């Protein structure tokens, strides 16, 4: 949710260390762990306008404060404003809280660092002084096992000016972070609610474009004494709808005609990475509680089944098949030479597969927890990995063609069934199989694994485990039931033919890897790497021609050295120098991902396009603006929207406000804004007024605006 979770987490503690003596008030022999800061988004206030203030609350030492509905116990934080005449504060916006469970008591609150946002309106006919001071008396209850009421008056000096208010640069990120933690106020989800007795059912129907799977749905009511917090809320499905079943408080004095609150769910209401909270205020009527199909466990079992089957299918992928065909050949030999302990190899092979899957998935989960935006197959985003893998795959392919043989023979590596080295070989082939399989899993199972990664860590690890088990299953089966090997054909010339055929599959994999590399770093790099691959093949040929066992020892040593130079030197050179040949391709950036040809923002371009009767769409955005990123992914990633842009010949302009840019700041101010996101559509019709879209957009909203 936050861009820098670690920083968010550590901040309050740093603050706590240095500012403890200043913070809060002390009562009952204990010191408050809360410190407050009030900041304004703009440097000045403008009569007739609404501006935003942020109250930053830092809570140290694992203590917590409470949400607007504290839950079973606790007390909500409140602000009493003392404002000069002509200035008024609106309703405070609360970030989505967490559930603090101390069974049997459940409360809603916050740990660490959070922001409340408050709208401040200056009257049109403001008559007061230019320099004003506003005071806020903040009252809160902080608890950690025991509770401590806190109160502090904070003051903020502000200037009222008739001039256009300007954003205060030092707080832009603060406000962007603060807004990203608020619940979504509007959405295209259709939410309804009904109750029967003490059962409340909330139904959420996703919009057509919503493609994620909603999990962990919870309702946090604004109303107190409405819901029994201790009872688990259960999620089920009915068609496309999500059904949430909630127990009402049996001691409620009335059942309200509307329910208000926040629905909280993973991965977010506008897809992955978007807002986790959705504010609702909907009618509540008495009605039949519908029976949904169980979500949760059942779908997890299904996910496990599919990952197991997916793992089996992975064996047929061009990246994996050659590695595993070698393994099979090993089994064939084994079946006819030696009958004992075959299952040891199967178990170790499985161990190798699982260990690699765990390391890959674990690394990914840890990196993602650290805030990195990574997906499965993330290693493929690295050109270095692609280069290394293509060299490896090509050498592997050459050895399959019989250009050279590693050691004595690759097949005899699997053949050395006796002793520890043979068993270790089984483990290594499991690792190798997984490492070379991941490039194939990315396009093949990408969305399924993407789902796995949105689940809690233990579920994703279980899904990966089943994927690994599926991949190892055929070998475990073959090795644990030696009788099955009787059906495997006897070794013979067919094995050599199969091996050579597999070589072609490996070359195909190399081509695919180079294509990915080309997308990332341009075609020059592909040619450069292909030259390196040529040198590497020469090295392989030298080793195969003069390095084999039939040659005199001296020739073999010299051949091996020359071959090593041919293979290693270009590879190392390629890995260190590929950047020289890399074109300036936007690495996985927004421009390409959205499939729209954005041009950089320029006021003159707008004038020119409009003069020529062409419509213009401007996207004011910034890399640090989370909702901008989500908006862009959701709205501009949509095929219909892209088609509409194309059909209407709209010029898409991107005003990137990531770094300070006066032109963009001025353009924003012209629309009375000082923040992103802002979406402006200039229709083609000459003299027509620009249309400002809402701050949160969906494909439907954009298409409507373009009409």
């Amino acid at each position: 949710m936050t861009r820098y979770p670690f920083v968010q987490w550590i901040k309050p503690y740093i603050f706590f260390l240095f500012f403890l003596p200043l913070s809060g008030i002390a009562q009952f022999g204990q010191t408050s762990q809360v410190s407050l800061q009030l900041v304004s988004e703009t440097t000045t206030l403008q009569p007739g306008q609404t501006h935003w203030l942020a109250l930053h609350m830092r809570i140290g030492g694992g203590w917590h404060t409470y949400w607007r509905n504290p839950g079973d116990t606790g007390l909500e934080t409140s602000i009493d404003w003392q404002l000069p005449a002509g200035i008024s504060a609106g309703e405070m916006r609360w970030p989505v809280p967490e559930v603090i469970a101390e069974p049997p008591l459940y409360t809603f609150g916050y740990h660490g660092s959070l922001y409340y946002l408050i709208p401040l309106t200056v009257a049109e006919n403001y008559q007061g002084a230019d320099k004003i001071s506003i005071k806020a008396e903040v009252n809160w209850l902080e608890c950690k096992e025991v509770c401590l009421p806190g109160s502090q008056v904070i003051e903020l000096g502000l200037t009222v000016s008739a001039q256009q208010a300007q954003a205060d640069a030092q707080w832009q990120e603060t406000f962007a972070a603060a807004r990203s933690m608020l619940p979504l106020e509007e959405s295209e989800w259709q939410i309804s609610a009904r109750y029967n007795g003490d059962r409340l059912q909330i139904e959420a129907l996703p919009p057509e474009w919503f493609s994620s799977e909603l999990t962990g749905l919870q309702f946090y009511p604004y109303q107190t004494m409405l819901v029994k917090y201790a009872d688990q809320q259960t999620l089920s499905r009915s068609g496309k709808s999500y059904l949430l079943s909630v127990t009402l408080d049996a001691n409620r004095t009335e059942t309200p005609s509307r329910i208000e609150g926040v629905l909280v769910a993973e991965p977010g209401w506008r897809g992955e990475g978007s807002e986790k909270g959705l504010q609702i205020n909907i009618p509540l009527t008495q009605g039949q509680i519908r029976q949904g199909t169980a979500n949760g466990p059942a779908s997890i079992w299904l996910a496990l089944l599919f990952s197991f089957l997916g793992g089996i299918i992975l064996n047929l992928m061009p990246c994996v098949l050659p590695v595993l065909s070698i393994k099979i050949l090993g089994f064939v030999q084994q079946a006819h030479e030696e009958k004992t302990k075959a299952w040891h190899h199967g178990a170790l092979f499985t161990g190798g597969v699982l260990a690699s899957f765990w390391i890959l998935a674990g690394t990914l989960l840890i990196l993602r927890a650290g805030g990195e935006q990574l997906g499965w197959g993330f290693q493929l985003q690295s050109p270095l990995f692609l280069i290394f893998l293509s060299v490896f795959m090509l050498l592997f392919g050459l050895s399959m063609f019989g250009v050279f043989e590693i050691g004595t023979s690759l097949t005899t590596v699997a053949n050395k069934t006796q002793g520890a080295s043979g068993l270790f070989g089984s483990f290594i082939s499991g690792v190798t199989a997984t490492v070379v399989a991941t490039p194939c899993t990315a396009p093949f199972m990408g969305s399924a694994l993407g789902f796995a990664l949105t689940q809690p860590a233990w579920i994703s690890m279980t899904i990966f485990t089943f994927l690994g088990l599926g991949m190892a299953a055929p070998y475990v089966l073959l090795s644990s039931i030696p009788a099955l090997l009787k059906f495997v054909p006897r070794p013979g010339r067919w094995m050599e033919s199969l091996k050579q055929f597999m070589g072609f599959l490996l070359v195909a994999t190399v081509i695919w890897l180079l294509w990915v590399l080309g997308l990332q770093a341009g075609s020059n790099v592909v040619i450069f790497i292909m030259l390196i691959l040529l040198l590497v093949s020469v090295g392989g040929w030298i080793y195969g021609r003069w390095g084999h066992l039939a040659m005199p020892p001296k020739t073999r040593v010299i051949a091996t050295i020359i071959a090593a130079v041919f293979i290693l030197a270009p590879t190392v050179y390629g890995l260190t120098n590929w950047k020289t040949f890399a074109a300036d391709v936007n690495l996985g950036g927004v421009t390409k991902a959205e499939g729209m040809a954005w041009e950089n923002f320029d006021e003159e371009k707008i004038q020119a396009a409009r003069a020529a009767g062409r419509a213009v769409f401007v996207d004011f955005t910034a890399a640090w603006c989370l909702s901008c990123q989500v908006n862009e992914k959701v709205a501009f990633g949509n095929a219909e929207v892209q088609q509409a842009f194309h059909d209407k010949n709209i010029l898409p302009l991107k005003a990137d406000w990531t770094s300070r840019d006066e032109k963009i700041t001025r353009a924003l101010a012209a629309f009375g804004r000082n923040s992103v996101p802002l979406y402006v559509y200039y229709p083609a019709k000459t003299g027509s007024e620009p249309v400002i879209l809402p701050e949160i957009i969906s494909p439907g909203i954009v298409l409507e605006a373009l009409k």
Partner: protein
Amino acid sequence: MFYILYFLFLSALLLSGAEAKVGQPAPDFTLTNIDGKQITLHNFTGKWVVLEWINYDCPFVRKHYSAGNMQNLQKTYTEKGVVWLSINSSSPGKQGHFTAAEIHARMSSHKAYNSDYLLDPEGTVGKAFGAKTTPHIFIIDPQGKLIYTGGIDSIRSADPDDIPKATNYVREVLEAVLAGRPSPFSSTESYGCSVKYK
């Protein structure tokens, strides 16, 4: 026979996991007071009973004791025949769990007028009633039926200055029912610290 029924009732209560509900019989209990005496709720049948969940170190309990508000209520209504039981569900080692001597000292310094101070270190009675906060008030009619659950008054704060401004629910309810009128409140929002269950 009674104990069998009582046992069945308690089992049903535990199995259903239901908390005490206004309009239903209050869950019966037997607890030890600070002098080691067993106190059983159904022995008070025929009297109005107030249960007050207490934790002397909770700022919200302090609010009402430091201003004398809680003691006034205790004095006023115990003199009118109401039984007032203060119950402490703090588990040993947690805030509000004291030795008998300490409780005696606190009660005399506060000039408490409660009928008894009961110990519920396991939290079973607190959970049976659904006591969430300190203070949390439950009022039981002479037939043993729960007629009120909730806060002591209407202003949810730890500031004693708010007491005169607030609607005192306990007073409103007791004044009405002792005069034979229906209770104006059946359940309100209790506020305060969490009960320090184990």
